[in-house]
């Protein structure tokens, strides 16, 4: 690993959502353990990929890191500052430096605000520019995301999904952040538009020196854009490694199954492929199995897997795996 600075440090992050029941007095009867102990670093300037299937907790992780959800336990350190120590105004001020792009381009823009106001809101909130400068800056930003600056006076519903996503990107860039969480930014877009948006994100990263946490379930796209990747399953990281190493030498059985399930647009290749088909469904995050979360579906499950939870270990070359097979 290069000796880049660590921009974001996540330590044993947990986010549980309580399940309450009862009519008059609501008691907590259980919890959805969406994120159950994540530990990793994100280095400045890199694109860190967080992948997994639905229910694995990756979206929750992204939002909890940004403190949009309050963590149940654990720590997030951003640029050396422990985010949990910040409250109210201070936290809001720190938000300048860490932004988010949402998955749904239709839901993440206020339908009653013009595009110009949406993008300009961070400028206003953080008093970044004076009133007259704000219009200029908004135009600059629209230019940056390759949209016509004239669009500032239009409303979100007049735009297509891909354009709206770019408006969202412009908004995220308005406060000159260092770190952007990209929460499945392209899954809701058509295939031909996905490439446009991904290219834009890459260009912006080069131009502005951004650090991305790229959350996705599309493994082919993650391979294309990320430098390091962490695979999540039921709230935990099962494998974390540098990109090429992960895709060529996946060690965790879940990662292997995941990679083998991704279809390749090449008929002869597809036909010859031997897939690892997993049995059954993902267990519920309310009641995860004791021991390794993956034990109910793992083709190599051993006795110890049902009892003891494996820890994330370095098996060489900064390749971390949480699996008893590694012993």
């Amino acid at each position, binding site marked *: 690993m290069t000796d880049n600075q660590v921009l974001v440090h996540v330590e044993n992050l947990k986010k549980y959502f309580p399940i309450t029941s009862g009519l008059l007095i609501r008691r907590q009867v259980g919890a959805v353990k969406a994120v159950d102990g994540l530990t990793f670093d994100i280095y400045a300037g890199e694109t860190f990929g967080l992948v997994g299937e639905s229910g694995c907790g990756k979206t929750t992780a992204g*939002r909890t890191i*940004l403190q*949009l959800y309050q963590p149940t336990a654990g720590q997030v350190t951003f640029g050396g500052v422990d985010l949990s120590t910040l409250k109210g*105004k201070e936290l*809001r*001020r720190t*938000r*300048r430096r860490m*932004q*988010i792009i*949402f998955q*749904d381009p239709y*839901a*993440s*823009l*206020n*339908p*009653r*605000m013009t595009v110009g106001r949406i993008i300009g*809101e*961070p400028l206003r*909130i*953080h008093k970044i520019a004076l009133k007259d400068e704000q219009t200029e800056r908004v135009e600059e930003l629209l230019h940056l995301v390759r949209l016509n600056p004239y669009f500032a006076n239009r409303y979100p*519903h007049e735009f297509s999904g891909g354009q709206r996503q770019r408006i*969202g990107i412009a*908004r*995220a860039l*308005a*406060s000159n952040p260092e770190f952007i969480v990209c929460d499945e930014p392209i899954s809701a877009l058509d295939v031909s538009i996905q490439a446009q948006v991904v290219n834009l994100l890459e260009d912006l990263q080069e131009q502005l020196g951004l650090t991305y946490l790229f959350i996705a379930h599309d493994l082919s796209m993650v391979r294309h854009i990320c430098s390091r990747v962490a695979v999540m399953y039921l709230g935990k990281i099962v494998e974390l490694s540098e990109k090429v190493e992960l895709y060529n030498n996946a060690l965790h059985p879940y990662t292997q199954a995941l990679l083998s399930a991704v279809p390749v647009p090449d008929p002869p290749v597809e036909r010859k492929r031997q897939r690892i088909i997993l049995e059954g469904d993902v267990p519920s995050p309310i009641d995860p199995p004791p021991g390794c979360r993956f034990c109910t579906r793992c083709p190599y499950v051993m006795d110890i897997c049902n009892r003891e939870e494996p820890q994330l270990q370095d098996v060489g070359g900064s390749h971390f795996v949480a699996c008893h097979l590694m012993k």
Partner: protein
Amino acid sequence: MIILGFLTLVAIFAPVIAPYDPLQVLIGIEPVKKRQAPCIHLLGCPRDQPQHVMGIDGNVRDEFSRVIYGTRISLSIGFITIGAAVIVGALLGAIAGYAGGWISNAIMRVLDVLLAFPFLLLAIAIVAVLGPGLTNAMMAIATINVPAFARVMRSSVLTVKEEEYVVAARAIGAGPIETLFLHVLPNAISPLIVQGTLGIGTAILETAALSFIGMGAQPPDPEWGAMLAAERNQVFSAPYLVFFPGLAIMVTVLGFNLLGDGLRDALDPRLRL
């Protein structure tokens, strides 16, 4: 909308349209009798009799002018009471919806108590305390309507609160007050607008009811409900004195209801405004 436009014009131009001062008692000025039947020259009434399109009321005043001026009163009552109720209800509901927790509970429970009382009893109680009169009646009506609006606003806010653009606002660093007023309120207000418009019709009816029992407009104000009350014993001898105010009430309320329905369709979120 047409109905209401027409009514608004009538209200505004009442002094021009009405041939007589609604309060002016005509004894001695014209040769007319109490509760005289309508005399419409176009329909055959002899020209030497003064024209009174809707007849003369029990106090020898021109009914037509009174009905016309009544428009002013009813429309302004409708807008003012509901306007006030909407503002108060919207604020309470928005705060309750956005803040949640014990604040929400406290507000909503208090409003529930208000909601539990039958309107008329509550109105009578308020008026009894404050004294009869149109202004007090209006306050009573406004208060009655607040809980319903607060409820609508609260549920709307609860939905909008979860929308992703609200999360986005927090993410860029907006504080809770900003988020509430800039993002949540504008998007949550449309069901309330519809509800409010429909409520105006009801408010007018409520005013008429209060005036009917003597709690609202006091004589000689030409309020339709009061006019109905004054002549209610004359249904058979002078039906025109009951018919026209009643018709005016009906048409106005209908107009507002239609407007409310139309607004609901126009503001339907499925049309992605």
